[in-house]
């Protein structure tokens, strides 16, 4: 017999009613504390960076969700049909990040040194070479453009998916596939631009062609872990009980494993090329991140973001075991630390500081985003209802209409 089974497969639903008000409470408490940070002038800088950190964290989830939807359509995959609605809902939350971008738009001239430089016309060769991108109108144009593209693709993809729930028409699948052709290019371009503008340009002198891929790898890693947890919970609670089978969890686990390696590969490559070339214009970024306790954070990323999940996920049976729950929670912590490593050394060059505003902004944005997600979850069916691939996903053979017609025309079934 199979020696392992999914922890949720036979259990009764959990009583989650006491957790219901949690997102709201997080939002209120986090919001009040964040407001203090916003209003007190000496905390304003910390507030802006903490906000950026949490904003990028939840952007990771939206982008990861969008990427998984694109991947599903581009590969014409059948295994991922049951998780597609979860991904679509995650991706669609990106529209709520538009109002949440306002503090960053507002404080950008204070956060991004190149904005100040270009305001004061200070000569800076690094900036001069990158001026076509790093100028103030471009910053806002790129931001608006990215949000528009994200909003367009995520809502369109979910629109046709929901349309298919109603009609069951294969035309919807074709529409989504066409959207995904353009979507994957738009994904690559917009994520690159956004992450260069919002995160990398905190130190505009730096060069790294890996940076956007690095953010992408970490984001998708986080998202896969999150989707695993969400679908596991929904299987236990009932809505996905019939459709989330071992295959789905096993493939999600394998994808998480793949992205654990992919992230490490990308991050190591970025570090290695800079280390090997040893050019001050590039090394300064890592020199800053090897000072004080940032060194230890770097070690936590190597061992906690890569080695630990790598070794845990290596065994084939772990991908269906209870260990995936701590791994999923761990992924949240690691991605948070990873983003801190990128963003926070600018204002805390001496070492890692977990400021209460980090937690406040995270609680506020997190509480808000979870609420928006739950609202969408409640509004639509939990998985695609009439996807033409569904019987294939469930391992049921349905003969194509043409062969059934042929059989009846030739005098019934053999």
């Amino acid at each position: 017999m199979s020696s392992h089974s999914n922890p949720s497969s036979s259990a009764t639903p959990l009583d989650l009613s006491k957790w219901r008000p949690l997102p709201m409470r997080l939002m209120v408490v986090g919001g009040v504390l964040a407001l203090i940070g916003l209003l007190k002038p000496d905390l304003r800088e910390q507030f802006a960076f903490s906000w950026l950190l949490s904003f990028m964290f939840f952007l990771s989830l939206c982008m990861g969700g969008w990427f998984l939807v694109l991947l599903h359509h581009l590969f014409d995959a059948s295994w991922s049909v049951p998780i597609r609605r979860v991904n679509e809902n995650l991706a669609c939350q990106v529209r709520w990040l538009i109002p949440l971008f306002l503090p960053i738009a507002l404080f950008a001239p204070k956060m991004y040194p190149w904005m100040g430089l270009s305001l004061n016309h200070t000569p800076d060769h690094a900036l001069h070479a990158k001026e076509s991108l790093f100028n103030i109108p471009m910053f806002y144009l790129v931001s608006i453009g990215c949000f528009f593209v994200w909003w367009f693709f995520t809502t369109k993809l979910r629109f046709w998916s929901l349309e298919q729930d109603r009609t069951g028409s294969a035309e919807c699948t074709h529409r989504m596939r066409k959207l995904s052709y353009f979507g994957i290019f738009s994904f690559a371009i917009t994520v690159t631009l956004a992450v260069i503008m919002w995160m990398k340009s905190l130190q505009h002198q730096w060069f790294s062609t890996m940076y956007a891929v690095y953010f992408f790898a970490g984001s998708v890693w986080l998202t896969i872990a999150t989707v695993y947890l969400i679908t596991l919970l929904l299987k236990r609670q009932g809505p996905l009980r019939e459709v989330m089978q071992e295959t789905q969890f096993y493939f999600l686990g394998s994808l998480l494993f793949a992205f654990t390696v992919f992230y490490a590969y990308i991050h190591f490559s970025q570090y290695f090329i800079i280390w090997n070339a040893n050019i001050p214009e590039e090394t300064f970024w890592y020199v800053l991140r090897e000072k004080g306790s940032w060194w230890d954070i770097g070690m936590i990323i190597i061992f906690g973001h890569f080695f630990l999940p790598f070794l845990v996920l290596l065994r084939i049976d772990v991908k269906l075991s209870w260990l995936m729950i701590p791994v999923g929670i761990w992924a949240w912590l690691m991605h948070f630390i990873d983003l801190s490593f990128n963003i926070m050394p600018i204002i805390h060059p001496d070492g890692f500081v977990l400021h209460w505003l980090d937690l406040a902004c995270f609680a506020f944005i997190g509480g808000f985003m979870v609420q928006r997600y739950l609202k969408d979850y409640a509004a639509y069916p939990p998985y695609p209802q009439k996807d033409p691939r569904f019987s294939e996903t469930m391992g049921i053979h349905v003969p194509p209409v043409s062969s059934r017609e042929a059989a009846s025309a030739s005098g019934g079934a053999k």
Partner: protein
Amino acid sequence: MSESSKLYGLIAEFDTPAALMHAAEKVRDSGFRKWDVFTPFPVHGMDKAMGMRNSKVGWFSFIGGATGYLTGMLMIWWMNAVDYAIPVGGKPMFSPHGAFPPSYELTILFGAFGAILGMLFLNRLPRLHHPLLKHKRFALATHDRFFIVIETSDPKFSGTDTRKLLESTGSKHIEGVED
């Protein structure tokens, strides 16, 4: 079949994968260990129906990979830091960063060696002959028939009882296979 030859096992033939699957479950539940199924194409869920556990090949590739990684690191450390040290760009004589890419490549290479050699070892391959290849109908396993073979070397094997068990699974052809 000559009287003097030893019996290798009993072979039972089935027409459909479903029949084979149910038969495999029965054989599994009877506690046999030295038996196998043969199908023209992979049948999903057969590993479970047979009660097979994870393959041990993973351990061979893991050990291969670890050996490859250590070989790479040791080789580069020996060559660049001990045996013939050349200072480059003021960098340390040995650094795990610099040695990582070749070590990583060797991890993959030795891991693949471990996997393929481990697979051959666990399957007792290569071998020049197998008793089943003499069996006339067995060639159909590459065409449209499905087979279960229970070996006589299985501790639970008994000529009459095992034949009865296979009969109870609905097989139409049950024959002995000479060794």
